[in-house]
C-alpha cells in the first residue's frame, strides 16, 4: 500500500491536471478541486482514494435520467441523427441499425445527407451490409423530402424504426440550423409526434466546443440524447459532464470503433471509471 500524501497546493494541482485532461472543462474541474481542498486540506490521503470518491460522484450524476432509446406508442419510432462534420453520424447509424436488426426489428434508413460527396453511397453500403431498406434522393435534393419519404416508407411497410442521416454542419451556420428545424417539421407533419429521438453525435476528441454544439443543435433540433463516438481512442469525452449538467442531455450510446458491432449502450459506471485511467 503506497504512502499517503499531504493535501497541499502541489497535490491539488496534480488533481486539477487529471480533471482537466478528461475534457470536463475548467468550471467542473475547479469546483471539484475546491471541494477536495475544503474537505481534505492539511490531511494525509491517497490520491487514488480521492479520485475514487470523485468517480463515485460522477457515476451518480450520470446515472440520473439515463434512459434507453425512445419507443413510439404506435407506428415506426423515428430517429433523427445530427451533429458537426465528421463526428461519426453515418457510421453510428450503421451500428445502431445493426443493433436494432439483431434485436429482430425492421427498419428503414434515410440518406438525408444530399450534400457531401459520396455520403449517400456510404450509407447505402451500410444498409447493404445490414440488410435493410434505404431511402435516397438525388444529389442536391432537399433533405427534408428525403426525411419525409423515409418516414413515409417506414409507415407504409410497417417498419419498427426509421433512422434519418443528415449532413454535417456547424452550430454557427444559422441557415443549416434552420434546415434542421425544417426537417423536424416535415417529419412531424408526416407522423405527428415524430421524430421520437434526436441523437446528437459528438466526437469524443472534441473539447469545450461540444458544449456550444449541444446548445446550438438542441435549440435547432430538440436533441434527446447523445452518441459519444470514437471513445475507443485516447480522448476521454469528459465534456459530456457539463453538457449533462447544463442541458440535461444524456449519453445514450458510445462508439467504440469503425465496425458494425462497435457500439454499446452508455454505461455510466465504466465511463466514470475510464475517465481517470
Amino acid at each position, binding site marked *: 500500500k503506497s504512502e499517503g500524501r499531504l493535501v497541499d497546493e502541489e497535490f491539488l494541482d496534480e488533481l486539477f491536471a487529471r480533471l482537466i*485532461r478528461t475534457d470536463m472543462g475548467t468550471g467542473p474541474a475547479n469546483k471539484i478541486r475546491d471541494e477536495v481542498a475544503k474537505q481534505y486540506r492539511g490531511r494525509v490521503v491517497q490520491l487514488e482514494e480521492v479520485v475514487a470518491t470523485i468517480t463515485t460522484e460522477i457515476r451518480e450524476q450520470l446515472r440520473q435520467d439515463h434512459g434507453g432509446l425512445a419507443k413510439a406508442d404506435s407506428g415506426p419510432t423515428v430517429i433523427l441523427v445530427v451533429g458537426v462534420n465528421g463526428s*461519426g453520424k453515418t457510421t453510428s447509424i450503421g451500428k445502431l441499425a445493426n443493433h436494432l436488426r439483431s434485436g429482430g426489428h425492421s427498419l428503414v434508413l434515410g440518406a438525408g445527407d444530399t450534400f457531401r460527396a459520396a455520403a449517400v453511397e456510404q450509407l447505402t453500403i451500410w444498409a447493404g451490409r445490414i440488410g435493410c431498406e434505404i431511402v435516397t434522393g438525388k444529389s442536391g435534393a432537399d433533405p427534408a423530402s428525403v426525411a419525409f419519404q423515409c418516414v413515409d416508407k417506414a409507415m407504409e411497410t410497417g417498419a419498427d424504426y426509421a433512422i434519418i442521416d443528415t449532413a454535417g454542419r*456547424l452550430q454557427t451556420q444559422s441557415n443549416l440550423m434552420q434546415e434542421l428545424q425544417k426537417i423536424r417539421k416535415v417529419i412531424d407533419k408526416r407522423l405527428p409526434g415524430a421524430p421520437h429521438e434526436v441523437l446528437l453525435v459528438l466526437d469524443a476528441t472534441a473539447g469545450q466546443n461540444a458544449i456550444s454544439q449541444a446548445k446550438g443543435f438542441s435549440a435547432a433540433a430538440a436533441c434527446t440524447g447523445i452518441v459519444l463516438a470514437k471513445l475507443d481512442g485516447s480522448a476521454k469525452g469528459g465534456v459530456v459532464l457539463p453538457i449533462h449538467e447544463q442541458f440535461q442531455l444524456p449519453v445514450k450510446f458510445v462508439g467504440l470503433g469503425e465496425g458494425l458491432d462497435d457500439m454499446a449502450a452508455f454505461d455510466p459506471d465504466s465511463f466514470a471509471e475510464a475517465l481517470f485511467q
Partner: protein
Amino acid sequence: SLSEGLQSAFKSLSGKGKLTEGNMRDGLKIVEQSLLESDVSYSVVKEFMAHVSEKALGKRVLLSLRPHEELVRIVHEELIETLGPVDPSLHLKADRPTVLMLCGLQGSGKTTTCGKLTQMLREQQIEPLLVAADLQRPAAIEQLKIIGEQLGVPVHTETDHQDPVKVCQNGVDRARRDGNRVVILDTAGRLAIDEELMAQLKRIDKKVGPDQVYLVVDGMTGQDAVNSAGAFNDALELDGVVMTKLDGDARGGALLSVKQVTGVPIKFIGTGERFDALEPFRPEGMAGRILQ
C-alpha cells in the same frame, strides 16, 4: 474578455499602479484558466505559462502604469512567437513529382483537404494526381473520385486488393510516368493508439518517401491534441499541420498544443466545406481567437 478580466483583477488591488508579485501571479492564473478554456492541453499551458511568468514577474512590468496591458501584450507576443514562424509553401520539387501525404484521426477533414490543396494548385496551373489510399472506409474511394471529377484532376484508385502501401507506390509511379508535378496521398483516418494502422502508415512513409507529410487536425480537438499529434509526429516526422473546421466558434487551442508538441509549422487552416476554404495560417488571427 481576457483583457477585461485582468483589468478588473488588477484594478481592485492597488490604485497606484504598482503591483506585487503576488498580484501578478493572480493575473497569471487568469491567463492560465483562459488558455485551458480554449482547449490548450494542460502540459502545454504549463510550459507556455512558465515562459510568460518569467517575463511578467520582472521589475519593469510590475512597476508599469498599466500592468494588465503589459501582461496581455507579453502573452500575445509569446503566443505569436510559439505559433509561428509561417510557412505556407508546399516546397515543390523542380525535377520530379512532389509527393504530399495527408494523415490524421478519423473525420478530421483529410479527404476534403485533398480537394482544397488541389484547388490551390490548379490556381497555380498545376494539376495534381490524387491517390485514393483509404481502402477501409465505405465509399472513401468514391468520395475522392467525385472530388477529382469536380476539380478536373485524375484520381488513382485500385479496388482489387487491400494494401494501401501498394496503391501509394503505384500512384507515385504513375505520376512519374505521366509527368504530374504533385501527387497527393489521401490516407485512411486512424487512431494514434492503433499500433497496426500506425505501423501501416510508417510502411507507406518508408516505401514511398513522401516529400511532405501533413497532419490534418480537427479545430475543435480538446486535451487529446497533445497525445495524437505527438504519436503521429513520433511515427512519421511531420512536415506540417493543417487545422480544419475553424469556420465555427471553437477557440482552437489545439493549434498551440500541436505546434508546441511537434514543432512543425501550421501550414493552412480550413474554413469551410468548399474547395476554396483553405487559407495560409496567420498567427495573429489565431492568437486573438485563443486568447478571447
